[in-house]
């Protein structure tokens, strides 16, 4: 391969570029990014960046030295518009094209929008520009904030806003937030963190619409209630950025379909990160975005799938002074046992806790609140167990 184009200049795109060089690719490396920023770390955007504890330079994922070593052509502030049927030409904004021998698709996902979210005061939180805009508004003194969606982004943002002294309400359409991720029992425990943080949590009711003409004034719920708001933050999930691939030979279905080795329908096109549906599942986790590129790049350079990537799912969230960490593959019906620490009034007690999800006498997953050390031990055991069990089952 003489030219490889990485489409997407965020975490997984950067990791793919690093892997290409680390695995010996010495040809022309082109990195296309729709944002004008150099790669930055998104997780702090809803936390330390929003509260002002971290600044932009602390978000940078690369430095000048590494950038020089990568020896790549960076096309930032440039959106990819298409990939030809053979996967040999990437079409860019303004009709420019890049001829390429290999492609790494790392275009990520975009925040889901709500109808009418063009009103002033309505925000999503996905990009640095989003976070800058929200941070600026939050700096204008105490305000009434409604966060739509009680997932991780919503909860972390609500926590940050409450910490800055704003009055915050979280609206969640499901009876409880985070049930698909944590199961009902532990989702209830984590939901209790909102209350402890002084945030109202309204659940089991959808949003009918946003009120306001130029600037948002409130959120109307499905039962007619209106929650007054100066700022509304929409945190209702993300959609994979695949629109630019319409008309390519790739199969798109809630992401770019790949085999277990991140390889698409075309052997010289691989996909990584939030946009990739690898072996049937799409994970919007930081860990997947950093672990998939090694395998994807190896397969790209080999011209076929020689390695597979099925890392143990792992994610974390910092909210209301609690560090939540989860790893493993839980299923509904798993028994949940508090193995260390305890709950107090349905919420994590002072010293946090460690919960094990179990099925047929085996641990399937682990959840920790402020217990990083035992969590890490179980997470490693789960990963080791899985690497032992999977090949034996084949």
């Amino acid at each position: 391969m003489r030219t490889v184009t990485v489409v997407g200049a965020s975490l997984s795109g950067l990791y793919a570029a690093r892997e290409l060089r680390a695995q010996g690719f010495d040809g022309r490396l082109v990195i296309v990014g729709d944002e004008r920023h150099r790669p930055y770390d998104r997780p702090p955007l809803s936390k330390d960046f929003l509260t002002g504890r971290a600044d932009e330079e602390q978000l940078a994922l690369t430095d000048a030295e590494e950038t020089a070593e990568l020896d790549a052509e960076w096309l930032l502030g440039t959106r990819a518009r298409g990939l030809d049927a053979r996967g040999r030409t990437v079409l860019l904004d303004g009709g420019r094209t890049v001829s390429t021998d290999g492609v790494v698709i790392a275009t990520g996902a975009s925040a889901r929008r709500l109808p009418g979210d063009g009103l002033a005061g309505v925000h999503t939180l996905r990009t640095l520009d989003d976070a800058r805009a929200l941070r600026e508004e939050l700096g204008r003194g105490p305000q009434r904030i409604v966060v739509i969606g009680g997932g991780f982004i919503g909860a972390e943002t609500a926590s940050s806003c409450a910490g800055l002294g704003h009055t915050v309400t979280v609206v969640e359409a499901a009876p409880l937030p985070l049930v698909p991720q944590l199961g009902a029992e532990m989702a209830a425990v984590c939901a209790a963190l909102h209350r402890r943080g002084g945030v109202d949590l309204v659940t089991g009711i959808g949003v009918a619409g946003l009120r306001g003409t130029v600037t948002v004034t409130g959120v109307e719920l499905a039962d007619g209630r209106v929650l007054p708001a100066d700022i509304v933050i929409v945190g209702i999930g993300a959609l994979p950025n695949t629109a630019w691939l319409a008309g390519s030979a790739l199969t798109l279905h809630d992401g770019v379909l790949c085999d277990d080795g991140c390889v698409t329908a075309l052997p010289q096109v691989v996909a990584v990160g939030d946009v990739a549906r690898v072996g049937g599942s799409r994970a919007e986790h930081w860990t997947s975005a950093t672990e998939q590129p090694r395998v994807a790049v190896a397969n790209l350079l080999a011209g076929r799938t020689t390695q597979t990537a099925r890392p143990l799912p792992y994610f974390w969230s910092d909210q209301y002074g609690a560090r939540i960490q989860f790893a493993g593959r839980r299923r509904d019906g798993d028994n949940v046992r508090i193995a260390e620490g305890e709950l107090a009034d349905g919420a994590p007690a002072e010293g946090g806790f460690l919960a094990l999800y179990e099925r047929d006498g085996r641990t399937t997953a682990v959840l920790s609140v402020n217990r990083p050390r035992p969590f890490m031990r179980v997470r490693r055991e789960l990963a080791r167990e899985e690497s032992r069990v999977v090949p034996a089952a084949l």
Partner: protein
Amino acid sequence: MIPVCRLEDLPEGESVRIETTPPIAVFRTEDGELYAIDDTCTHQDASLSEGWLEGCLVECPLHAASFDLRTGLPTCLPARRAVRTHRVTVDDGTVHVHLAAEEGTAA
């Protein structure tokens, strides 16, 4: 020079965090060696004293960045910057940390 704990209170394979500014993590490896480094991962806010100790390497509990206790250098991403290392001595059975900055000014 900061007293940390009695040597027998820091078993092999364990670590302890001292609440200096910035905090410092002291490790005793399975081989019995003592090392001290800045406790906060250079990637993001996480305590390395709660990390996974294997040989002379400690893995961050949040994002699996790994640091060499002997040099403070990261051995893998996502960390790119080294943590400071500090000299450790045992005097009359008490573990002491000698802050890197203090050593510099003394010289």
